[in-house]
């Protein structure tokens, strides 16, 4: 393969593309979409301000509490607001379908509420326009459109024969056109990546790590541009008329981008049923009751617990204990119920993961899906990033409840007649319990979560090159 011939053919392909007027229409469409997507992305991300403000508002009212019984504070509780990752400007992922705020209180794991979808009118189900969406959905269509006739049109009008008789090799022709098409598609990507770079540079919350994530995005999208260009040229080579090439590519797009992802996820959800909130709660309640009911004075489990505590401290009644028994009892109860909840929640998440499994694995044969999964995960807007938030919120809730229980054990009098300890705790304690601080999933974890997709994109890259090499061997000019 001569480099010079390759470059001439690539250049010639690009020049011919830019000769047609249609290309400028496409550029214009893409620019308009980019502007809309970028503006919405930034506006979506700006919702973080509301969340930071409300986190602060909740904190202020937490700290503003006077001296009081710590269990009052355990019920006063606080809130956790989910903050968006800066790269969510680029890829919205599942963000609009995940809850954004959760009330954290003792004894009870509340649902993360107020997702964008719950306020939506059904319009949201048509999808959202993000920069990632344009690159994943619209750009492939444009690549197909520009490249479908690349070989077959030359064959139809006889240029191919001339090229071959002039000494060009099939490999040079195919790879030359494929590289030309790739160059054009990368050119289309460029304004998107440039816009994101600009936004990230001006955004104050961006850290080193986010640039690394962005680099992965750049590589992944570029590779997919190559893959799609190579496949387009191959299909063009293998079709007997340009109309056939176009229809095949459009059909491929519809199948891979629109129908397969939705169908596979729907089938996954069909076969792995998940409980509704009511069922989920009822199952947890059942399990908690199996342990015993701490409100029932005759409950065997809690009676045995009390007896063993009294025995260990060599006293006869709970009033004589050196600590507040109510606080102790609740800390036990909290641990039991949190464990049971954790167990059920884990089962629920595993069931969700099973639902997602089919779509995850289909990424192997569907590079579009691979790109989608990878892009979401690296942008911190995928399912696992959301689970990460839920886990942190529950972790904080548990710590808060247990902190209040330990304050109760330590500072609240076990005996109403004994005045050495009071029935309240100083408000300084509220301040010293630090606020909920959300940390994003680490980049390593985000990458590991989508290893199937990464392998898929790399293999597709190699496969698409192999496809052209194979095509070159079998190609005929007529």
């Amino acid at each position, binding site marked *: 393969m001569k480099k010079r011939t390759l470059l001439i053919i690539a250049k010639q392909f690009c020049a011919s593309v830019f000769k047609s007027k249609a290309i400028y229409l496409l550029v214009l469409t893409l620019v308009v*979409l980019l502007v*809309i997507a970028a*503006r*919405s992305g930034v*506006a*979506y991300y700006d919702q973080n301000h*509301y969340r930071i403000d*409300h986190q602060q*508002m909740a904190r202020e009212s937490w700290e503003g509490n006077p001296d*009081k019984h710590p269990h009052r504070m355990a019920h*006063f*509780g606080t*809130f956790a607001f989910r903050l968006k990752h800066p790269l969510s400007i680029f890829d919205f*992922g*599942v963000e609009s*379908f995940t809850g954004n*705020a959760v*009330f954290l209180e003792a004894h009870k794991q509340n649902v993360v*509420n107020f997702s*964008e*979808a719950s*306020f*939506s*009118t*059904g*319009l949201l*189900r*048509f*999808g959202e*326009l993000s920069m990632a*969406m344009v690159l994943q*959905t619209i750009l492939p*269509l444009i690549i197909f*459109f520009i490249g479908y006739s690349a070989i077959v049109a030359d064959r139809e009008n006889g240029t191919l024969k001339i090229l071959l008789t002039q000494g060009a090799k099939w490999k040079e022709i195919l790879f030359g056109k494929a590289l030309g098409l790739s160059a054009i598609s990368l050119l289309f990507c460029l304004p998107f990546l440039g816009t994101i770079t600009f936004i990230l540079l001006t955004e104050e919350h961006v850290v080193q790590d986010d640039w690394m994530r962005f680099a992965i995005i750049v590589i992944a999208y570029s590779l997919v541009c190559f893959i799609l260009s190579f496949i387009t040229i191959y299909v063009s080579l293998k079709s007997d008329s*340009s*109309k056939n090439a176009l*229809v095949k590519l*459009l059909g491929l797009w519809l199948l891979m981008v629109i129908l397969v*992802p*939705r169908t*596979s*996820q*729907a089938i996954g*959800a*069909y076969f792995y*049923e*998940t*409980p*509704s*909130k*009511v*069922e989920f709660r009822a199952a947890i309640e059942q399990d908690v009751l199996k342990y015993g*009911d701490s409100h*029932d004075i005759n409950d065997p489990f809690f009676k045995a617990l009390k007896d063993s505590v009294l025995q260990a401290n060599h006293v006869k009644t709970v009033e004589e204990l050196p600590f507040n028994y109510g606080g102790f009892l609740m800390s036990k109860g909290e641990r039991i119920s949190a464990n049971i909840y954790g167990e059920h929640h884990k089962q629920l998440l595993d069931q*969700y993961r099973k*639902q*997602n499994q089919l*779509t995850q694995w289909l990424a192997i044969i569907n590079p579009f899906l691979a790109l989608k999964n990878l892009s979401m995960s690296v942008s911190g807007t*995928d*399912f696992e990033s959301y689970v990460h938030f839920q886990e942190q919120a529950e972790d904080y809730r548990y710590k808060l409840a247990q902190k209040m229980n330990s304050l109760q054990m330590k500072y609240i009098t076990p005996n109403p007649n004994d005045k050495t300890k009071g029935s309240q705790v100083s408000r300084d304690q509220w301040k010293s319990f630090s606020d909920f601080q959300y940390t994003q999933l680490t980049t390593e974890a985000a990458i590991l979560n989508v290893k199937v997709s990464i392998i898929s994109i790399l293999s597709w890259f190699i496969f698409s090159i192999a496809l052209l090499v194979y095509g070159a061997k079998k190609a005929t000019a007529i």
Partner: protein
Amino acid sequence: MSLYLLMFRQFVRTRICQLGLSMVLVLGIISIFIGKQFLDKQRATAAQVAETQQEHIKRNVDLHKDDLGLLLYYLKFAVVNDVSPLAGLSIGQKDINPSVQNVTILALEGQKYDADLVNPATLLFGNLDLSFLIVYVFPLLVIAFNYNLLSEEEEGGTWKMVSVMSVHRWRHLFTKMSVRAVLLFGVLIILFIIAAGILGIEYNLAFSKIILTSMLYIAFWFAIVAFIISLRRSSNFNAVALLFCWLIFLILIPAVLNNVIVNKYPMPEAFTTMIKQRDGYHEKWDTNKRETVEKFYKQYPQFSSYGFPSEASKLQWLWYYAMQNLGDVESKEESALLEAKVLKRDDVSQTWSMLVPSLHAQLIFNSLAGTGMENYLDFLNYTEQFHEKTRLYLYPKIFSYNKAEGVDWDRFKPEHVSFEAHITWSHLLLPFIGAIFLLVCATLISFRYFNS
């Protein structure tokens, strides 16, 4: 007639026809089963609530029979928004917005927005219900079947023969298109019949409106195709132009509109309501009891005969439930703002959908199936009434220190409600008829123009 049958047979033999129709049938049957599963799940949840409520009340009554105030701290009462079988056709928002509310008589704001448990990834990819098939996939088939209706004959050279041999060459095109329309409408009706059987849909006005909406929507796509054909360009041009139309109507316009609505009407009120409700209730623990109860009596003067609690007493249920109620009262402003904004969002999407048939069809499906936003808002409002009704029945019993046996617990069976969709004929028909009319006019003009 025999010519018509011939054309019919000819088309049925093509690969695109066989492939397209079998794909839509397979997807259609999958989607109906998904709808069935959805309905079953909704019904199972409702049944479970009915079953557990009895037991839940009984268990707690046994535990706290002497303290009604404490008992009602734990007791939950369910209200069920009955799901219409039509929801199996168009799941809409029903997957996130729960159709069962299980509420205590404590402050409501913290309870009523509780979302259902859902897998966000499934929501992202969307439900594969019959409405998706009609809104997304049928137009694709209309395009695939018709894009080369004329250009194929022109490119193959048969159009000249048709022109020479027949004076009614436009009728020839029309017949070809009608063959395809008959097939597509036939498949659509078959799917609806299967759906009615599997989902247990009775034939009623709402169902016939759904069928009519589907047919008009598909007719709208035939009109688009007719217009593009009338431009008399190549097959390739037609394919690209029609796919572009599809992209515009099903992906770009809805997505842009959604982005605009989300950004124009953000919902910070949701967060504020949540915090205010909590603070409104909790602050009362540390403030004057008399003031709290006074505020409560302003709300419900009928209870003022219960007097005021002494500041020194530790806990009095009257005061406690007054505090809870004030949590709701003090977050009312934000809550109303929140509801107004949701209504505004609904309003804006309804208005815009009049111009975009794809949106219009989907929103009509959701409304008729009772799975849209307005149905959920109705349900939330009903929950509020239900909550108040329950509270007002129980308050005097708590305040006069009744024991659990003083309450008729049998009356607390889960309550079932359902809401009618109000869709006028003109609202349903006008957007489609308007769009089809415009397209047909444009087609006729362009045929005449390109023919002369």
